[in-house]
């Protein structure tokens, strides 16, 4: 812990010295905010200084507390992407200099650190967050200071902000493909098991509506608090309901308890397979029981055969402190930094308004490990391919289903007529 904070302090210190030197050398540096003063931004003038040969970015991940389990990997892959971009000449010719902050699995801390990164460190953009709660904490702050936040995790959708870019899947890129897959498989009955917070609740609301449309019967729905691992009582209900499939929206370590209770009760993937939206390459070997034969719905899998994936995997395996396997959320975090680079270079400026304008007026793409993703400049999400993988004995995923094309992001599910407007409003309000 102390070594981390020391490193952070050292970074902040060198950052400050670097900035001061740059200012001295450049005399009066151009400020990113000046470019478009009067462009309609109501926020305070930006203190972002890109007059030197570096650009400062903020990484905001929980390195301590419960979410460190997941967010450390995101932080690591952001560092890797930084090294790659810097080795390749940086963004607009400026090397990235990052300030790593610890969100500490505490949502008010996420808000405080966001304000610190924007107003004291004067970073041009912030990358990170994992839980929806952390994103909801960051949102009002980046909106107030007209900053930029890049959020890398699949989530419940029903959100859009001029100051946030979403590089993970929204529901129509993960949940709906999973349901299409189940329908194609001829599944008739489905049991919903989830952790008790906004993502599973919203996802299941959508699943129930779509299931009715597809003629799939929901035979049960169970939730357990995120911080509880014991699924015994709920699995007993599942065993009694005998569904064709289980749709699993459980998150974190509670998944381990669910899988253990599942096998304890004598359920098997041959009769009652599980489709998950949060078990990826990194989680599968940590279950304490082989999970071969179960399914997961993601956009990216390590097993995907794309042009850029082999190199991504190779670089990640060689990266210090890497987990050795690649997975969807970390790939989305990797995309986020490159997407920012593409946006800034299209805009020719680090200024937030210029970046947002470029997002709207130009086609921003990135050759991601999952394939060539395109940014939707209106809703700030990206197009993604839908994939269903089946876990094999090496805890890798065999791709068993893929969407025919990249799925355009539709966070409010406006293109789906089975999703009524009143439910949309109700869920959007509930999500805050």
């Amino acid at each position, binding site marked *: 812990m102390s070594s981390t904070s020391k490193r952070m302090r050292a970074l902040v210190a060198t950052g400050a010295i670097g900035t001061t030197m740059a200012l001295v050398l450049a005399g009066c540096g151009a400020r990113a905010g000046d470019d478009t003063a009067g462009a309609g931004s109501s926020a305070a003038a930006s203190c972002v200084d890109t007059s030197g040969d570096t650009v400062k970015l903020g990484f905001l991940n929980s390195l301590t507390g419960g979410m460190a389990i997941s967010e450390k990997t995101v932080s690591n892959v952001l560092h890797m992407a930084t090294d790659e971009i810097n080795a390749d000449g940086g963004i607009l010719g400026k090397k990235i200099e990052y300030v790593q902050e610890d969100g500490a699995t505490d949502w008010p801390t996420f808000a405080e650190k966001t304000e610190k990164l924007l107003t004291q460190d004067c970073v041009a953009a912030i990358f990170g967050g994992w839980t929806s709660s952390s994103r909801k904490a960051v949102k009002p702050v980046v909106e107030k200071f007209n900053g930029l936040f890049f959020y890398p995790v699949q989530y419940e959708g029903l959100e859009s902000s001029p100051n946030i870019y979403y590089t993970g899947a929204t529901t129509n890129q993960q949940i709906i493909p999973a349901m299409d897959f189940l329908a194609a498989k001829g599944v008739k009955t489905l049991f919903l098991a989830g952790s008790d917070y906004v993502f599973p609740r919203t996802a299941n609301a959508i699943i129930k509506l779509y299931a009715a449309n597809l003629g799939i019967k929901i035979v049960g729905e169970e939730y357990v608090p995120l911080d509880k691992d014991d699924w015994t009582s709920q699995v*007993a209900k599942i065993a009694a309901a005998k569904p064709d499939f289980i749709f699993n929206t459980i998150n974190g370590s509670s998944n381990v308890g669910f899988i253990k209770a599942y096998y304890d009760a004598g359920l098997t993937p041959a009769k009652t397979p599980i489709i998950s939206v949060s078990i990826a390459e990194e989680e599968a070997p940590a279950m304490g029981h082989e999970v071969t034969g179960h399914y997961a719905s993601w956009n990216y899998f390590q097993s995907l055969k794309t042009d850029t994936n082999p190199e991504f995997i190779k670089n990640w395996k060689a990266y210090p402190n890497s987990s050795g396997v690649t997975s969807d959320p970390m790939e989305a975090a990797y995309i986020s930094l490159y997407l920012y680079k593409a946006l800034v270079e299209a805009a020719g400026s680090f200024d937030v308004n210029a970046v947002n304008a470029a997002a709207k007026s130009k086609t921003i793409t990135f050759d991601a490990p999952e394939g060539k993703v395109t940014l939707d400049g209106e809703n700030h999400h990206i197009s993604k391919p839908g994939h269903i993988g089946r876990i094999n004995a090496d805890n890798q995923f065999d791709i068993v289903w893929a969407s025919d094309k990249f799925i355009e992001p539709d966070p409010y599910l406006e293109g789906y007529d089975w999703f009524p407007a009143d439910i949309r409003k109700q869920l959007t309000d509930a999500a805050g």
Partner: protein
Amino acid sequence: MAPLLNGSAQGALLLLAALGLSLTFGQMGVINMAHGEFLMIGAFAAYLVQQVITASNLSIPVALPVAFVVAGLFGLVLEVTIIRWMYRRPLDTLLVTVGVGLILQQAALQIFPSQGVPVEKPRWLDGQLTILGYNWPLRQVFTILLATVCVAALSAWLKYTSFGRRIRATVHNRDLAETTGISTRSIDRLTFFVGSGLAGVAGVAASLIGGTNSQMGAQYIIPAFLVVAAGGIGQLKGTVIAAWAVGVALSFFAYWTTGSLAQVLAFILVIVFLQLRPQGLFTVRTRSLA
């Protein structure tokens, strides 16, 4: 039938987690918030044993005593370095041990993969026992047996051995125990060792039920304290009954409602009970109640 059997197993796990606390909190009056992290240490010990002994059939039985000793040693270090200065200040032990717990959590996060580590259950726990049409997982039967063995061993040890007698003497009246020649310092250390070691055993059981990671201790510590308080401080039989009752209540509520609501309802029940009967199920006059 299902909720009753499931609940008994849930209660058994709670009991394992609470058993050590009923010694350190109940008998010694130390509020050890790091007890959950000792449980975590036991679970990680099980993982490490599985790295050495790869056959899970053998590794879990070996892991139980190993986890007991490892967690016990951590407890001993905590007692010798910190707790010993705070016996007359229970609230200070609370603050200090919260800090110790956070340090242990972060240490686990630094040492082990952040996603947590897998602990496999032995093959002989595959399968179910069919009771009145319900397929009762053998793993649950194992948790209940383990808890029973631990309770029996602990109460026999307290009752029949000279160590046990000296512990009870120290708890009842420290000064008088000292005048009869009992080294109360070494008794304190021993009690804390055993109490923490029992958390380690609970950790092995917990590793077969949920995830083994830096955060796992947190989900057991509050229910364990509630169980000890509801059972009556310093009372082993009270802890046993309270743990079973809470486990069964949790399971029945989960059966009738949802998992989240069950947590709320079960603990409302405990709180209401403690309002009506603050001294818990059973009472005994101990130093810690003075």
